[in-house]
């Protein structure tokens, strides 16, 4: 989408562009990945789209491989009116898309460093493009850890990818769940309980974190205890969004517009605000 011309939009930025749904993949009991035709759409890991499903529009992170020119994926949890409409789409249906929006994960700046990726719940979705990027540029990074916490075993996303990444010798993948029954033979505990498994050079390490806000607060605290620099811990924030253009005012978090200054922000930039209630 030709969104910019010398930094200014030339096309009505409120207008969705129509894409075709290629496939709806059921990830868990309530979460679906909507795969749409790319049609020249380009994005960077960590960016999001506004998806329009006739009854409404919602911000959804892009969860596919940025190097894949054919398909763009969005992983959606069915919670409300619009997300239900999105999850009910079928192959061949049309969908409205505005984007990509937002500040991406700063992958280039972290080259040469060890990388710790920490995901909680649906927070794995905006991190998946980042992981694809790290793995296709594996030589540019030191050790890579992926720590992922889900609520229960049935909430685990992207099982195939997790298995594939786990099988690689050049990335350490740990998955934990908050609650499990006896059939689960993996880790049980919050995602922060995986952090002691991380063995990196803290002075040359970067972390990318996404999950519920409280999980990100606890996680960043543990990463700082590990010796990581707050300026190299990046988190992806979420707030109510209506326009994604920095105009509607909804997504403000202190001075930041999450839609354009975020969603990815360095922890050092917002550490204080994160500890304050109702910001």
């Amino acid at each position, binding site marked *: 989408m030709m969104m910019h011309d010398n930094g200014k939009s030339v096309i009505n930025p409120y207008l969705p562009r129509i894409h075709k749904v290629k496939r709806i993949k059921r990830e868990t009991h309530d979460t679906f990945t909507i795969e749409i035709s790319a049609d020249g759409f380009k994005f960077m890991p960590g960016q999001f789209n506004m998806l329009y499903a006739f009854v409404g529009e919602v911000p959804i992170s892009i969860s596919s491989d940025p190097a894949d020119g054919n398909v763009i994926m969005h992983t959606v949890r069915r919670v409300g009116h619009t997300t239900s409409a999105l999850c009910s789409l079928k192959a061949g249906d049309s969908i409205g898309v505005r984007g990509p929006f937002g500040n991406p994960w700063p992958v280039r700046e972290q080259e040469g460093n060890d990388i710790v990726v920490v995901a909680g719940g649906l927070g794995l979705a905006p991190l998946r493009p980042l992981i694809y990027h790290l793995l296709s540029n594996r030589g540019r990074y030191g050790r890579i850890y992926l720590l992922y916490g889900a609520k229960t075993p049935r909430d685990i996303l992207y099982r195939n990818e997790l298995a594939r990444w786990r099988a690689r010798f050049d990335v350490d993948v740990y998955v934990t769940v908050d609650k499990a029954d006896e059939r689960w033979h993996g880790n049980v505990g919050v995602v922060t309980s995986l952090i002691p498994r991380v063995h990196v050079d803290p002075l040359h390490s970067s972390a990318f974190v996404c999950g519920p806000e409280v999980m990100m607060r606890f996680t960043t605290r543990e990463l700082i205890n590990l010796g990581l620099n707050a300026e190299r811990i990046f988190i992806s924030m979420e707030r109510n969004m209506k326009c994604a253009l920095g105009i509607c005012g*909804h997504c403000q978090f202190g001075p930041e517009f999450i839609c354009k200054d975020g969603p990815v922000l360095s922890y050092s930039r917002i550490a204080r605000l994160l500890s304050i209630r109702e910001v």
Partner: protein
Amino acid sequence: MPFIVERDEFNGFFTALRDMGYEIIGPRVRDSVIVYDRLDSVDDLPIGMTEQQEKGVYRLRKRDDGALFGYTVGPHSWKMYLFPPRIRLFTAERHDSNLKVVEEQYSAKRLAFVGVRACELHAIQIQDRVFLNGTFKDQVYEKQRKNVFILAVNCTVSSSTCFCTSMNTGSMVGSGYDLVVTEVLKPRHHFLVDVGTSLGHELLSKVKHREASREEVEHALSMVEENARVMSMMGRRSIDTKNIKELLYNSYESRHWDDVEERCLACANCTMVCPTCFCSTVEDVVDLKGEHAERWRVWDSCFSDEFTYMHGSAVRRSRGAKYRHWITHKLASWIDQFGTSGCVGCGRCITWCPVGIDITEEVKALQQGYAAGR
């Protein structure tokens, strides 16, 4: 080079503006308040009227003269014309699996804003930064903004709620006008006129005028300066803007918000009357057959629960936190976001707050609390 236009010739501006294709918008009395609405002639102005404004109080009063601009600002602001309260963004048609989005064609009328005050011109310029200077331009705003003629007025009167001098936005109009007038009532009712643009020059050329003498200029401007002096006196409302950003950023956890919580009703009046508040939301309307949908943008307020609704609840639920967000945005984060304060000192939020919350008093309370380490 300033000029003089006599009171009897003032309607010439209205006639000429209409000849130039403008619809004239300006102050007029409706339902016992001065609002902005369509004007047909000079007689539609609130001639000989003024208002009494205080915390939670607005009363129209008669003046003992025939002043055209002898009042300050009411609940309306010009943003309602530049940033419409309700506008359709697009329509969509859905048939089987096909979805078609139809772009809205916006047309802008040529509007002449008559009676724009210094604080209001600042407010327009602040909204210009929001809607035109970001990564994305707001097309509706831009289109209308380019089709606006601004006839500004220097303030020679002020309400008790005005504090523009402390915000550096008045009482003298700075820039951004096509024409600016200063009303002089005595000894002879006339107007000092200054030209800001060639368009303003074109308008003036169609109205009977003459060059002003130095004395006439000094006399008129001294009244504007006197008004500013009165507003700056002790006991008048003001905000000390020194370190204001730091004050608010450091007051997130002040106990003062609990005090606001006790008073604020979260009614959103302050955001509706504020000439710079720009928040909006969207509404999707779908017909019963599910074939036709429309998406509308409407004014919104950070005081509603829906404003921050996410995953089943609002981020800002308490009224204290909502007010904290509003005042911190207005006076502090606005500076980081747009390089200017979001407050122009017009005092509307003070007058129209039903429980009399006064932004200038809240800042003072925060300053005192901060100094006392609370």
